[in-house]
């Protein structure tokens, strides 16, 4: 029955006429259509290729048949198979005089050939001839081929003819000639630079179609150099005005819109010309206003023009009235049911947000809806918008969202992209170091191999070198909490990424080195043994090298090991002898013996690629590295001018201060045995914080209670200007009916003042820091234990033994290592121990307040408020500085040090070699 239907269809088609395909071709298409698998389809196509090869070799093929063969070749290639054996026949066909054959020939060559194909040379002559043809269809076919097949070498051959065609009597030809010239300009701007004036001339063509065509090249030209086209502003504006007033012939209307494509192009050009030019912009205001008013927002194309208007309004010198009407259009877009319009609305919002930040607040709920929409495209667009409006007050929520989304997707390309966005935002706006480290951990955990490895190195360096704060205690505490979180990650079942393995092996190396240096017998755990064996066969030469080094180190005696991995060099500068001068003697010896002298890499032939790659790599490293210059001020708060409350944007500062103030207090907990429970509590806090913003911790729930929201909003309204107070009022009343979850999200994303949220987060921080401190002293206790037990701590035990992993987090490996030091070398000062002794004095003052979370929170409230009040611009800058690495200049030289920390798998350590070799 099915077959009958298809046959019937075929018959009907045959009777339609106009395509005399043979039965063979019909059979081919049908059998491909019915193929059940890709393999079957491939078999059919391969058979077809064989047939065609045979047929094309036959002498005296009738032209009609030839045309069909060419179409069949196109079909074969469209299905992904190589049809190059037939290209020459297509080229031959372009030489034919008969129009249908010539057109088919041109169609085939434009689809088959690239502009640098060898066969092009056979076509150029034909094209030249055809461009001069009397038959305008032949000319059009040739122009079509010109666009695709002519490259910068062959442009001179056809250029005179094409320029001549700009004056052709038929408008269709003029139009195509303009476009062909545009294509030349795209391919080789130099070759046609003297003809650019032609585009200006064509702007005044009698035919609106030709004028419209000339807008495309002019758009390109204006994009490159807007200045030299400022004189055309008035022309463009008057053209746009005429188009909008329906002065064009009716045939240019599309869905009742006058020439919408021309309008779109003109608006794009005006947006470029008016950007940063007040005078030019002012001449556009009227026409823009007219178009926005007139455009029909019920049709797709009408909305396209409206969207283009918004883009233009956002790009030119701002005009309050236009901005207002643009905002109205955006509101319409966002309220629409169509996902397409929502998408455009979000995009437009992203453009307008720089000029009038308050507009985002009006649409906060719509934005959140889009964020939760199942449509991926819309979601990504919304993240783009959020990225643009990130500031230090909402960075936590936004980055959390991004990370959540990153975890949920599998598209590696976008994952890489959004991971880099997260890193960028975290680096720029991080409210605290803790948060920064935790966020980075999340990013690495879920997109480890996709993140640029330099980011990890920088993070490690940051932790190793401290955060530039004055007291070492803070640094060390941060370190211990960072290490703690890494231990938790290691506890997870999988270690996917290469660089994690690199970290693991170098950590192993250090531990064994300490053990050996301390003169103890080393028994390697079977897990470590197998891990090392695995890495010995790794594909990564770096991992292999590390594994071999470790094997070598373990075999050495204590003294040699000490020389290789000295114990306390954490903050010592290591001078890397990049010229490897210590090898000179060896090299000279070898050369004396007749060895070839070394030729630098870039001097060797064929090695250009390698050096290219390397320089690219370096370039990347610069791009992705932590920024060492001063951080810019956080982006201006949303109502910076009108709203005094917005000074709470500065909130991160109190955090940093209070953190410093409170950590000694919280260390009290450490003396008690409550350490482990403290630890647990802290993890809870962390999880809640990183999870969806539910704010369900007991401490924060009180401060975050919904009752505070309206008050918060009200304070906004008071301080906001009258014009916006109304809209916001309505927003507030609306809010009450909406999901509180959403409200909270909205408030945290858009609200200028986020004090409640802030305070709760400081609460977390306090508890966390107390945990860290607790851990510190506990760690030193644990050290004593480990010293008595020769087997090293199972820092890198990857087995899933629950006892080991659960015990791990309570042990601070840094402290342990230092503890090991102390046991043999008591002269070394341990600054961590120093803190531990100083801290209790201060602690005792507040000792009681830390007993319960509530009182701690009160204390925080006290400590944050005064600082919040006094905070100013200067304090804002201090925080970001504390986030990034302090040693701007000598950061690079410290790579060697980083290697010592075991975090830089790519750099070399000549010292290590020397000791191993010598």
């Amino acid at each position, binding site marked *: 029955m099915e077959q009958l239907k298809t046959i019937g269809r075929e018959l009907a*088609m045959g009777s339609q006429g*106009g*395509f005399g*395909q043979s039965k063979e071709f019909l059979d081919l*298409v049908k059998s491909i*259509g019915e193929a059940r698998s890709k393999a079957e389809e491939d078999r059919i196509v391969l058979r077809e290729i064989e047939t065609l090869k045979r047929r094309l070799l036959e002498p005296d093929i009738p032209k009609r048949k030839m045309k069909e063969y060419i*179409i069949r070749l196109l079909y074969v290639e*469209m*299905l*992904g198979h*190589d049809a190059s054996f037939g290209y020459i026949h297509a080229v031959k066909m372009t030489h034919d005089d*008969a*129009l*249908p054959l010539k*057109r088919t020939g041109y*169609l085939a060559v434009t*689809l088959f*050939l*690239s*502009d640098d194909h060898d066969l092009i040379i056979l076509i150029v002559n034909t094209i030249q001839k055809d461009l001069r043809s009397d*038959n305008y*269809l032949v000319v059009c076919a040739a122009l*079509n081929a010109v*666009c*695709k097949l002519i490259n910068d070498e062959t442009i001179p051959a056809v250029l005179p003819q094409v320029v001549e065609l700009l004056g052709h009597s038929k408008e*269709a030809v003029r*139009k195509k000639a303009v*476009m*062909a010239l*545009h*294509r030349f300009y795209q391919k080789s701007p130099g070759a046609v630079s003297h003809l650019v004036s032609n585009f200006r001339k064509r702007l005044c063509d009698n035919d609106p*179609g030709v004028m419209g*065509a000339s807008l495309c090249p002019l758009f*390109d030209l204006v*994009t490159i150099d807007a200045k030299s086209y400022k004189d055309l502003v008035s022309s463009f504006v008057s053209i746009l005005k005429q188009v909008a007033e329906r002065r064009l012939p009716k*045939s*240019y209307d*599309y*869905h009742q819109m006058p020439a*919408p*494509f021309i309008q779109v192009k003109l608006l*794009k050009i005006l947006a470029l010309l008016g950007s940063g030019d007040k005078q030019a912009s002012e001449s556009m205001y009227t026409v823009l206003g007219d178009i926005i008013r007139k455009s029909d927002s019920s049709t*797709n*194309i009408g909305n*396209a023009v409206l*969207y*283009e208007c918004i883009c233009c309004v956002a790009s030119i010198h701002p005009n309050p009235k236009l901005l207002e009407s643009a905002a109205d259009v955006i509101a319409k877009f966002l309220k629409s049911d169509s*996902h*397409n319009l*929502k*998408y*455009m609305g979000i995009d437009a919002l992203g453009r307008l947000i720089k000029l009038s930040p308050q507009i985002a607040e009006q649409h906060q709920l719509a934005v959140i809806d889009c964020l939760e*929409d*199942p*449509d*991926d*495209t819309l979601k990504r667009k919304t993240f783009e918008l959020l990225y643009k409006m990130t500031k230090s007050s909402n960075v936590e929520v936004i980055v959390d969202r991004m990370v959540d989304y990153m975890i949920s997707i599998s*598209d590696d*390309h*976008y994952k890489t992209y959004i991971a880099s966005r997260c890193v960028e935002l975290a680096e720029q706006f991080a409210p605290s170091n803790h948060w920064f480290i935790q966020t980075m951990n999340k990013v690495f955990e879920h997109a480890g191999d996709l993140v640029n490895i330099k980011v990890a190195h920088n993070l490690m360096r940051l932790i190793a070198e401290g955060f530039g704060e004055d007291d070492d205690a803070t640094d060390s505490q941060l370190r211990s909490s960072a290490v703690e979180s890494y231990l938790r990650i290691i506890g997870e079942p999988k270690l996917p990424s290469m660089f994690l393995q690199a970290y693991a092996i170098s950590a192993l190396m250090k531990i064994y080195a300490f053990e050996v240096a301390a003169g103890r017998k080393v028994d390697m755990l079977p897990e470590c043994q197998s891990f090392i064996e695995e890495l010995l066969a790794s594909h990564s030469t770096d991992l292999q090298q590390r594994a071999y080094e470790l094997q070598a180190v373990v075999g050495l005696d204590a003294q040699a090991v000490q020389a290789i991995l000295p114990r306390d060099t954490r903050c010592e500068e290591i001078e890397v002898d990049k010229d490897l001068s210590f090898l000179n003697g060896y090299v000279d010896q070898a050369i004396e013996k007749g060895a070839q002298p070394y030729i630098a890499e870039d001097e060797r032939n064929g090695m250009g690629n390698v050096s290219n790659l390397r320089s690219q790599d370096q370039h990347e490293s610069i791009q992705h590295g932590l920024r060492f210059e001063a951080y810019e001020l956080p982006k201006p708060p949303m109502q910076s001018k009108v709203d005094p409350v917005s000074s709470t944007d500065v909130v991160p500062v109190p955090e940093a201060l209070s953190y410093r103030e409170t950590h000694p207090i919280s260390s009290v907990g450490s003396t008690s045995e409550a350490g482990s429970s403290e630890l647990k509590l802290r993890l809870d806090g962390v999880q809640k914080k990183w999870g969806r913003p539910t704010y369900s911790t007991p401490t924060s729930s009180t401060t975050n209670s919904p009752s505070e929201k309206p008050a918060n909003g009200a304070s906004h309204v008071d301080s906001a200007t009258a014009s916006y107070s109304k809209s916001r009022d309505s927003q507030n009343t609306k809010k009450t009916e909406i999901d509180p979850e959403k409200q909270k999200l909205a408030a945290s994303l858009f609200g200028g003042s986020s004090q409640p949220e802030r305070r709760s987060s400081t609460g977390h921080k306090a508890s966390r820091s107390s945990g860290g401190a607790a851990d510190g002293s506990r760690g030193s206790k644990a050290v004593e234990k480990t010293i008595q037990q020769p087997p090293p701590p199972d820092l890198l035990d990857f087995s899933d033994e629950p006892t080991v992993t659960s015990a791990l987090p309570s042990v601070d490996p840094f402290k342990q290592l230092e503890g090991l030091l102390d046991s043999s070398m008591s002269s070394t000062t341990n600054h961590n121990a120093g803190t531990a002794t100083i801290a209790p004095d201060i602690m005792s003052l507040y000792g009681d307040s830390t007993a319960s979370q509530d009182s701690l929170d009160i204390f925080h409230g006290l400590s944050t408020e005064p600082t919040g009040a006094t905070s100013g611009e200067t304090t804002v800058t201090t925080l970001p500085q504390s986030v990034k690495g302090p040693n701007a200049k000598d950061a690079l030289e410290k790579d060697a040090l980083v290697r010592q920390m075991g975090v830089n798998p790519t750099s070399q350590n000549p010292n290590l070699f020397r000791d191993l070799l010598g």
Partner: protein
Amino acid sequence: MIRAVLVMNTQGRPRITKFYEFWPVEKQHEAIRNVFSVLCSRAEHVSNFVDAESIFGPDSRLVYKHFATLYFVFIFDSSENELAMLDLIQVFVETLDKCFRNVCELDIVFNYSKIHAILDEIIFGGQVLETSSTEVMKAVEEITKLEAASNAINLVSKSVSNWRSR
């Protein structure tokens, strides 16, 4: 500019592919496969836009429309407007519909060169040439007429020359 026009059926078989910049056959095919896997995973009643940078490189956008058994896909860069491109797909389909009266997949398969002729009248070298389907129809009809005429002349002249040579 418009980078490519793809028409494929709901099983992922390409029906019309036109790249306005040169792409090697294998890459074309890979791109088509990738586009299809993205499109078929998209739910109904979502936007017609897709993030295409992972398939077509930076600054590329993709707009598609689903008609019966076919996907119509346009790939273009930031110098075009997404909504306008969506309407251009509409123009293309409307023209096909006028040409073939209730166009279906088979019409497209069997009228390969005619479809290309129509497309060439709408998009020229990656730029929008004409947006009125009646104008496009006119141009295409003229081409068909002239082709038929030149065919007839050819046939006559050939038969004459054949007859003479006899």
